């Protein structure tokens, strides 16, 4: 920065030439407590990474629970895993990976100041998020109808929305090993918590989309797009671990079981 620019800066800080607009030389997206756009950007990213570190530790509690119960009830976990729909799980994995790509490309176009491209990538990301939830809904519905539910609800087929028992519906629960209910407890809490993150992610993306359409972002200021994408990648990261751990335990291809 030249001495001229530095002088400008000091003047605004100490004397604030115009009392009506004391931060007139700040871009409106640069909050008054930051000296420079770079400082604001780095601080925002640092804060987001601290939050993501917390998210990883938060999910790790459930992964530790998973590890313990899998060592205790390995057979039940394999049996429970075989009841899940691997095609749907794999499809959802691809959908989430693709949404991570579109999110990363959304950040890229917003770094370049290409507003319309950013809009397209964000809309695609939100679309993938909804597709993921629709697949998840049908998976959950099948589990409810087969009575493959957590804890004491295990073995009683239920309607997903009303949670009323379904009379006459068959449940494979009786043929499954003891403690398969533990697998489904973890399945529902882990995928459910992940799905909650997806839902929150959709909300944030819609807000970011609105701001993008309003013209809030530019080559100089794309921080919200960047850190929202960081959150979205974390949602993807959690699923990257959930998919093999839930769906692929001791997998025997169809036709080779027995």
């Amino acid at each position, binding site marked *: 920065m030249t001495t001229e620019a530095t002088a400008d800066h000091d003047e605004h800080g100490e004397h604030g030439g115009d009392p009506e607009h004391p931060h007139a030389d700040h871009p409106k997206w640069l909050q008054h407590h930051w000296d420079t756009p770079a400082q604001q950007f780095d601080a925002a990213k640092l804060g987001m990474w601290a939050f993501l570190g917390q998210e990883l530790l938060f999910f790790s*509690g459930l992964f530790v629970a998973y590890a313990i119960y899998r060592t205790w009830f390995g057979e039940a976990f394999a049996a429970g895993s075989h009841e899940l729909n691997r095609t749907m799980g794999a499809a959802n994995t691809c959908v989430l990976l693709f949404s*991570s790509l579109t999110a990363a490309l959304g950040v890229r176009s917003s770094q370049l100041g290409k507003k319309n491209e950013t809009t397209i990538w964000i809309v695609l990301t939100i679309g993938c998020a909804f597709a993921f939830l629709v697949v998840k809904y049908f998976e959950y519905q099948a589990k409810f109808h087969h009575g493959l539910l957590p804890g004491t609800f295990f073995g009683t087929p239920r309607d997903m929305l009303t949670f009323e028992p379904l009379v006459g519906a068959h449940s494979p629960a009786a043929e499954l090993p003891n403690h398969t209910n533990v697998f489904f407890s973890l399945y529902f809490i882990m995928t459910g918590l992940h799905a909650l993150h997806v839902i929150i992610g959709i909300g944030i993306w819609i807000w970011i989309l609105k701001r993008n359409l309003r013209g809030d972002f530019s080559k100089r200021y794309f921080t919200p797009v960047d850190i929202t994408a960081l959150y979205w990648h974390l949602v993807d990261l959690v699923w990257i671990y959930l998919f093999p751990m839930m769906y692929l335990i001791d997998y025997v291809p169809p036709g080779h079981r027995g």
Partner: protein
Amino acid sequence: MSDAHDHDHDHDHDEDGYGKDEVHAHIGSYKQYGAVFMALLAFTLLTVAVASVHLGNANLAVAVIIASLKAALVCTFFMHLKDDNKFNSLILIAAVTFIGVFFALTLNDVSYREKLDTQSGNRIYLESGDKAPGSWDNPIKKEEKKEGEAAPQASTSASAAPSASHAP
């Protein structure tokens, strides 16, 4: 945004026309992002394929290693850690390290407790049959036992075979 103060008169501006206090993001190429995505899909196929190969306990290890490779790709390229402030990478490494400590201490505790009684689903001391630390009252098993007293239960065939092999 053109409402910002104008740095065009600066002499030491960068090629983007703004000063060094501006955010300078590394712009990844389409090619790079596409390649990372294809690698992630390939690893997904690999993890599905490997899951059908019987490796015993190694199956879980292989699944975790492949998932970690995928996670590393996402963090490095999609989350920009490659070109980012290194302190952000440090936060991630610190979080992963403490997750490792969490796993190591908890699994160490759990693996060296007393044996699992497959009939009650509980941890007991082998000599006395008393409940060991970490055991709990399992409400589900109690119900099943009551049913079992009335009549030999149908699910015995499913649970008896594994219990027999694990019974001390």
